[in-house]
């Protein structure tokens, strides 16, 4: 079985008028960097939350490594949400202790090395860091795990171009090569060069799932240009 993530008939409806994810069926392989692309409100974050067990699907099911999302899958999924989930009062060293205690695949040495490269002292309290550095710390925590699946929700949104480069470099240099990385974003031009495959979503529907090479060969366009064409208003 080469599929890491199997999604079948997945639907999330908040109410009758608001269906965030609509009957998606998808199988994502191992060892790929996959862009989850779509305009705001297309259902990317909702899909990601369901993969992480933070939202209960209205219908359908998700399996990771053949196991339904739950306690067992959480040990193998590294998740970077689109918000700060850490307590500001904590010192970074305390957060490292926390991750080391709960995640067997967490490498404290790797995290400390990345923090050192950024010039962030482990004794620093999270609340004293800038927004950009807080996001980098969260990314470092996630990428210091040797997970089977990395799910990164909008990792480069709201940061300056230099920080985007840093974030992308951190992802590429640190992920487990046998793992799959799902990166959700609408800033396609910035991440296109690192993607193997793309999933296009619109109004909760799956519009396209294909490889980046396929888009370039068949359409003669970059992913960014093709995305603009598909989602033209």
């Amino acid at each position, binding site marked *: 079985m080469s599929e890491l993530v199997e999604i079948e008939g997945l639907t999330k409806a908040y109410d009758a008028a608001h269906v965030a994810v609509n009957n998606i069926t998808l199988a994502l392989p191992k060892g790929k960097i996959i862009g989850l692309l779509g305009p705001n409100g297309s259902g990317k974050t909702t899909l990601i939350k369901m993969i992480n067990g933070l*939202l209960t699907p209205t219908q359908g099911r998700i399996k990771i490594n053949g196991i339904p999302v739950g306690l067992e899958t959480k040990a193998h999924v590294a998740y970077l949400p689109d918000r700060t989930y850490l307590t500001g009062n904590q010192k970074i060293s305390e957060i490292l202790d926390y991750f080391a205690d709960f995640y067997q695949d967490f490498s404290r040495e790797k995290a400390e090395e990345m923090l050192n490269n950024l010039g962030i002292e482990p004794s620093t309290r999270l609340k004293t860091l800038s927004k950009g550095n807080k996001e980098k710390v969260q990314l470092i925590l996630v990428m210091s795990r040797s997970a089977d699946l990395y799910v990164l929700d909008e990792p480069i949104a709201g940061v300056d171009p230099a920080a985007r480069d840093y974030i992308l470099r951190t992802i590429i240099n640190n992920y487990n090569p046998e793992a799959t990385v799902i990166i959700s974003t609408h800033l396609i031009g910035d991440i296109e060069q690192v993607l193997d495959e793309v999933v296009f979503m619109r109004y909760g529907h799956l519009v396209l799932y294909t490889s980046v090479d396929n888009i370039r060969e068949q359409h003669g366009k970059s992913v960014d240009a093709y995305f603009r064409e598909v989602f033209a208003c």
Partner: protein
Amino acid sequence: MLGKLMKYEWKNTWKVGVLVLCCLLLVTLFGGISLQAPVWRSLSTSASRYQVSLWDLMSIPMLLIYVLMLAGLYYAVFIYLAVHFYRTMYTDEGYLTHTLPAGKHQILISKIVNSGIWMIFVNLGICLSTLAMVVFITCALKPEDITWSMMWNNMSLVWDEIDELYRDIFGISLSGYIVQLIITVLAGPFYSMITIFGAISIGQLFAKRRVLMAVVGYIGIRVVNALLGSIVRNLIRLGMLRGDSGDEGIQYYMRSTMYSGFIVAVLMAALLYFASYYVTSRKLNLE
């Protein structure tokens, strides 16, 4: 995993807990100072005339403030622990909590045990504070010719008298009553925390205004609790009457209240725990 969860629950709450216990100490000192007013000592003397001072006038309001502050500290901790639960389970911090490789039972139990322990500490602190006030007032009212050793020696006689009184009126010995009180002080906080956590979790079943619905849910739970208590109490009383247990008057009331309180608390705690479990495992919808 449960041990790790409890460790971090403790780490995240101990500072506020210790702060409240320190405040409790200060409040007790404040209460003690209010009992140092000369008017209290005058009650045990035979002086026919006593000039009331401003200090004396302040004493009663200070005692009232002491009682209010005790209640305030209790509810402050209760609300803090409820907010901590809400924050770590159903807001941004919940993104971390619910992606940990830990079972929902483990997460819930760690929060209930930690919060329950803190409420026990606060309950014990309030009991000790009240005891300290009894000592303060005894110091103030004790006639000078009566020594502490004399009072201590008379304690056993007083104990026996109160014990007899309890047996006559309530049908329970004083030591039995104290054991019940200790059980209530120890088990009550866990029940209180399960109740508020259950209400917060029930609030999550609504699409909007989840905090408001949690408050409404809490009030609803208290109402159901009272109604169930009343029904069970009356059923027990009926059973007691039919069974001719030999209890009379207030004894019926005491026993039936005790049994019904216990039964309803166990039922409601089980129901609300599983409500929280159901919401976190089957109906989790973090926005």
